[in-house]
């Protein structure tokens, strides 16, 4: 009797976990249906994100303003929602973060596996890295907002602008086009320190610990024979390290994917430093917006049912994307690294 009770309570807790994921997907799918119906698949490719109605002068076929009784006739333009700017923002900020974080993390993981044991430094270093991973993103956000962004704005970005701004072919980094068509103005980009670069740097700092921790476990699992074999063949320290990296490349790729998953879903720190501008700009010095930061900024104050539904569709895209990245990552890391490291 007690046995049956125990079995069924354990089993139902297991089922609850399945239901959690199912409810997440169902609720988001139902709630984003109005937006899906209104915009269709074009939602993903449209670059306009305008939650409010717009008033603009009505124009006739010739393109001149329509007048009636001496007054300009106005027309309202319905709100428009497209997710491309935030998808772009999420993709670019995450990939840039990986570019900064991956070499650093792999280097540190090699250090932890091959050098630190000789220095008796594994314990303290592992604690530091795990603690870095446990610091809430809000703390990184505040640090980024009050320390990193001002440094970028006042020192790093002006210096980069001086160094790179005059090089032909790089001026796009420091200019932006305002408006479109023949009226467009090409102006110098104001350097605010709260831009794509700041967002990626903060993300890089935040994903270094997780990539390092998982890569460390993956590298630790390389068989001793593999390492000793290369050394017996006369490999240098670097050559044998390289063979370790090659041997565990799928696990390391999994570690990188876990970092990518965290970067793509990261909210608070990015919201505080990325500048929150729903425009696609090729320059890393222009303010941007990610899916997560868009949700954090607009969801609580959504101006109407369609706006809310469009935000929910963005949430759905974010969920599907991070599920996909996570599934790939876990498939690659399974059996090669401790899951406790991957759990946070």
């Amino acid at each position, binding site marked *: 009797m*007690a*046995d049956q*009770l*125990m079995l069924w309570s*354990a089993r139902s*807790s*297991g*089922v*609850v*976990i*399945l239901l*959690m994921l199912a409810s*997440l997907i169902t*609720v*988001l799918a139902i*709630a984003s249906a109005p937006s899906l119906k209104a915009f269709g698949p074009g939602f993903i490719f449209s670059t306009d994100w305008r939650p409010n109605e717009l008033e603009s002068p009505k124009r006739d076929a010739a393109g001149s303003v329509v007048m009636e009784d001496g007054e300009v006739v106005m027309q309202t333009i319905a709100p428009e929602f497209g997710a491309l700017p935030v998808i772009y923002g999420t993709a670019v900020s995450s990939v840039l973060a990986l570019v900064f974080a991956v070499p*650093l*993390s792999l*280097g*540190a993981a090699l250090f932890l596996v091959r*050098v630190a044991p000789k220095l008796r430094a594994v314990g303290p*270093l592992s*604690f*530091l*890295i*795990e*603690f870095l991973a*446990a*610091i*809430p*993103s809000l*703390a*990184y956000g*505040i*640090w980024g907002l*009050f320390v990193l962004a001002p440094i970028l704005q006042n020192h790093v970005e002006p210096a980069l602008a001086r160094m790179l701004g005059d090089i032909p072919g790089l001026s796009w980094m420091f200019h932006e086009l305002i408006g479109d068509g023949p009226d467009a103005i090409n102006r110098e980009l104001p350097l605010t320190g709260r831009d794509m670069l700041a967002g990626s740097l903060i993300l890089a700092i935040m994903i270094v610990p997780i990539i*390092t921790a998982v890569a460390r476990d993956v590298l630790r699992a390389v068989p001793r024979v593999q390492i000793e074999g290369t050394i017996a063949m006369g490999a240098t*320290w*670097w050559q044998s*390290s390289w063979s370790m990296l090659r041997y565990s490349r799928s696990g390391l790729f999994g570690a990188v994917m876990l970092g990518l998953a965290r970067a*793509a*879903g990261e*909210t608070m720190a990015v919201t*505080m430093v990325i500048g929150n501008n729903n425009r696609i700009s090729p320059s890393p010095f222009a303010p941007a917006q990610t899916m*997560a930061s868009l*949700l*954090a900024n607009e*969801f*609580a104050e959504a101006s109407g049912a369609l706006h809310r539904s469009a935000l*929910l569709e963005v*949430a759905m895209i974010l*969920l599907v994307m*991070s*599920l996909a990245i*996570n599934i790939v990552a*876990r498939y690659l890391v399974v059996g090669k690294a401790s*899951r406790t490291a*991957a*759990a*946070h």
Partner: protein
Amino acid sequence: MLAGCIACAVLIVAMLLWVLGYLVSIGAGSISLAFFTQLPTGDVVNPGGMKHAIIGTLVLVGLASCIGVPLGVAAGVYLSEYTQDRWLLGPVRFTADVLTGVPSIVVGILGYELLVVPMGGYNGWAGAFALAFIMVPIVARTTEEMLKLIPDSYRAASLALGATKAQTVLKVVLPAATGSLITGVMLALARIAGETAPLLFTALGSRLLSLDPSKPFPSLTVQIYTYATGPYPEQKRLAWAGILVLVALLFVLNVLIRYVASRSVTRGIA
């Protein structure tokens, strides 16, 4: 290249010290007794303290644990002890793994749709629900890993003495793993105590010391976020102080986790 490798490690440690150094030095300069004992005054020059937010976070984390810990531990027991359900275990384990990677802001939106919309307004229950949602898969997976470290001879001995499966799990396996289970729960607590994104659309935050979870509920993280992104310098100082308190709390939790893990019975067996 060895040098490059050392440089990477040094750079990461330097980065940590840079971030932590700022948090500690500015936070320490902004913190005072009033931070812990006073409520917000509403006055931007003399903004009071964060007593309400500290209590709010404790209540939210407590409520979340009431749901999240039993559910997570039960799911962990299922994954580790009931191997006869092989067809169901694989999907459950995989789902739990995938759930740990769901962006926390999406969980907040789920809480909004499931509990804020039907209840007609932002409320503490929704916040606790969102935190529990994040907690369950973490507790389930760590529990499973810890229980798997208990040698099968324990279970066999218990069953051989005539104990039922339920008695074996409740009186032999779980007690043997208590230390490590506490580690897992503390890991999950450390994670949810610092969460902001899932609370933005659920508990919302509040300037009042409220103990009624059916109303908007204060929390340390949301209050820090509001102050940090607001325009007033005195409130920014409070935000720095708040983040220091939060990070210090997590530091203590992390040290405790290491301590408990190093003394736990399972570690001794393994």
